């Protein structure tokens, strides 16, 4: 389903987009890293992950082109099997898979994944390679971006483990992935091994807990349709029939976040102010409920959450009253942005 188109049809378009500068730069950097049959990339893999192994020379880079994702998936499986045989036959062989295709079962439907590269070490083990264009400055990169890359790589690790499980003997999928970034302010690649065991465990658990799509589909009313061509009200009703709990974190992850935010705000849900806010307020979930409880108009005074709210409201009123005249009353208007 094209969630971006759906969000557009709902009147709350998503704001995701990539600047062509970033796109060009990212592609140029990836091409540079993989140039010359991946010499530089394999050098980094050897240096950061597998120094005991023989240094890579003339690595195998199998051709993975095929028509359609299924075809490429099959090519990738074949290439990985061949690489296993090859490393058994000729010790010291490195293999680089450029943009392999993997598949992972997400809530009962297959999702195709395309890692930047997978390296097969001489000992037959596999490493996921993530190439990113954010800089590694003095050996450290932006932790938020590294975290995102690690979560992404963890999904690839899980998908690779599925492939490995089908082989006999099944090769080891390394839990330390290779993150390749530009060094400082240059376009020279540098790399760091990132341990993704935690992210892998979290993702595996989340995947196993996801409600299967068929089960969600079963709960929907007959004839529910998410086609963006439908009139907005029917579409909104259809989206409404799928349960979703909006939190501000959704804004950076989901195309439908603005739609959900509008619904959440209209319903007065306190979660729209952030998950920690929701956690503080006990059983009170809407703005009106909380304010009514704080002002003593509703709620059970013996409920600790309600009692704390009332104390907070009283203290706040007292402090504002004390500051009273000093507090600014009239705030000048913002001139609208030009």
């Amino acid at each position: 389903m094209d969630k971006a188109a759906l969000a557009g049809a709902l009147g709350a378009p998503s704001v995701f987009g990539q600047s062509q500068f970033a796109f060009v730069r990212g592609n140029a950097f990836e091409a540079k890293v993989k140039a010359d049959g991946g010499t530089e990339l394999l050098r980094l893999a050897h240096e950061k992950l597998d120094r005991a192994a023989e240094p890579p020379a003339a690595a195998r880079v199998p051709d993975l082109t095929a028509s359609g994702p299924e075809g490429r998936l099959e090519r990738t499986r074949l290439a990985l099997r061949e690489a296993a045989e090859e490393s058994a036959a000729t010790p010291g062989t490195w293999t680089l898979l450029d943009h392999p295709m993997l598949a992972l079962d997400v809530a009962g439907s297959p999702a195709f994944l395309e890692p930047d590269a997978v390296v097969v070490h001489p000992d037959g083990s596999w490493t996921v390679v993530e190439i990113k264009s954010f800089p590694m400055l003095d050996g450290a990169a932006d932790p938020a971006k590294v975290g995102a890359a690690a979560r992404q790589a963890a999904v690839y690790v899980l998908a690779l483990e599925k492939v490995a499980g089908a082989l006999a003997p099944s090769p080891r999928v390394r839990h330390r992935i290779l993150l390749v970034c530009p060094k400082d302010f240059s376009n020279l690649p540098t790399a760091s091994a990132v341990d993704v065991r935690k992210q892998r465990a979290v993702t595996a658990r989340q995947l196993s807990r996801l409600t299967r799509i068929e089960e969600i589909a079963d709960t929907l009313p007959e004839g529910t349709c998410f086609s963006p061509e439908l009139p907005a009200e029917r579409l909104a009703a259809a989206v409404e029939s799928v349960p979703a709990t909006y939190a501000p974190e959704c804004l950076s992850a989901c195309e439908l976040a603005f739609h959900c935010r509008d619904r959440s705000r209209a319903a007065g849900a306190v979660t729209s102010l952030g998950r920690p806010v929701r956690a503080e307020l006990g059983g009170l979930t809407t703005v009106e409920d909380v304010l009514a409880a704080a002002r003593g108009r509703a709620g059970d005074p013996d409920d600790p959450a309600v009692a704390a709210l009332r104390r907070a409201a009283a203290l706040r009123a007292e402090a504002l009253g004390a500051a009273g005249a000093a507090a600014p009353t009239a705030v000048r208007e913002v001139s609208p942005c030009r």
Partner: protein
Amino acid sequence: MSLIATLARLEAVSTGRAQPVATVRHRHLSERPLVFVPLTTAGEAGAPLGALVGTDRDAPRLLVVPQPRDRDLRSAFLAELADVVLPYVDGFADAVEAAERAETDPETGKRVKVEVELCADAPQLIVPSRAGVDFVRLLGRSMRFRRTAEQDPEAPFPAPPRVPLLGRWLTHFGERARVPGSSLLLAMTDLLGRHWATGQSTLEDQHLGALLAWIAPPGGRSGAEAAQEAELARDADGQLVCPPAGPATDPAFDNRLLAPAIERYDRARTALAAAEDGLEADDRLGALTAAEREIRALVESRTRPTWDAVWHGLDLLRELPPGARVEERWTRDRWSFTGHRDRVLAGEPPQPRRDDAVTAANKLAVREREQTRLEAQEALDDPLVMAGRRLAGEAFAGEVVDVVMAYSESKRPSPRPLVTVRTDDRPHLGERARAYRSLGGKPQTAEFVGYETGPEDGLVVLRVMDRMGRGKEPEEGSVPEKGDRVCFTLFEHEPRGGAKLPDPEETPWTHGGPPGEEAVPEPADPVTEEDVL
């Protein structure tokens, strides 16, 4: 976030306007701050696209890099930036006042007072958002190791003369911004968020336009509506009406407006280089100038709204009266500025890429101490912040209902009066817990004796311990009287700051010291061969 701040957010939702979470201004605002609104090129680490910078809200200086991937144009931008920022910074270096500082005498090893200079005021940099603070730090890092032709005649692509110095100053501003409560470099979104709670999440508060829309919604509209418009409204061209505060630009702007303009500029430049005679070159130079002017206009159109928003934010903040202890914290910023001025004058090398263990430990200790100090001072300056501490059981306020004179049991008895306070707060008072109140700006200590009846009645008995003078009878006004409103805190007003770290020479090798041979000056970043990144 305390429950009081949460309540303020909920009230903002229901009233459609941001609600105060402070009754005084908790940060120093300079009379003449330098506002800096930078833009960067997407996907590049050290490639600024342009900036508005200056101290005059009506006349910002517009700096633009028409082709951000061109090394020479980037250098020209940084040189221009240095021409604006360094004179501003230097303007504060000369006006000094005499001050005293405790230093260790190198011969006797004793602590002695030394007369030193302290700059009477310090520069202040204001950027729109937290990402802007990071960008200042990044710019500082990218410049401070550069070599000028004078420093190193062999260096390929020498930096313009004052660029490395600018890098050192921006690094200092960036480092200082990590100290809680400091005001040398401030982000407008942080400043506004400290003083107002909006009806949206803190994540959404990072958008300066939306934040301002909640605090001062235009035209009698609701804050929610105005904020949503600031966040999402686009014009007929698909451009955001209120551009992001940067330094990152909106992808739609990059793709639809900026990229074609840069391409036209590149073409005009290639054409100029290929011109065969003077007449042709004149024409083509005209085309190049026009292309450059177009990019300048684009950059200005994206930075000017943010520039105006930052100044509007400053107006709003200036309407708040400054907190009583803000000036004291600013003095610490002045010390920090003076210290760095002295290091630059003494010809010390730029800040290293990585701090050594001793420096890092010191920085961490300073930040922890300043965090404690900031929390205490904000509460003492502002009843609304104190209300949060009272709610958390870390302070209590009430009326004095009884004062009984008592004396200590030493040879020369000193006054130790017992004061009973009636409070509705629920402080976490342990046995013999210390409580402090502010007496003429200095903390007076009291010891918790017990509850007169039981904790539920809120009659707290305290024994006042100090600040009553040397005599047998306490000095006038040093002991609370019956009927007084008092506020005691369970936290100290001045951070004690733990054990002092040893001098670098005394630091054992296990902890990174003592320093070895003279540190080698750090090499400049190697330059990549490609001119265009």
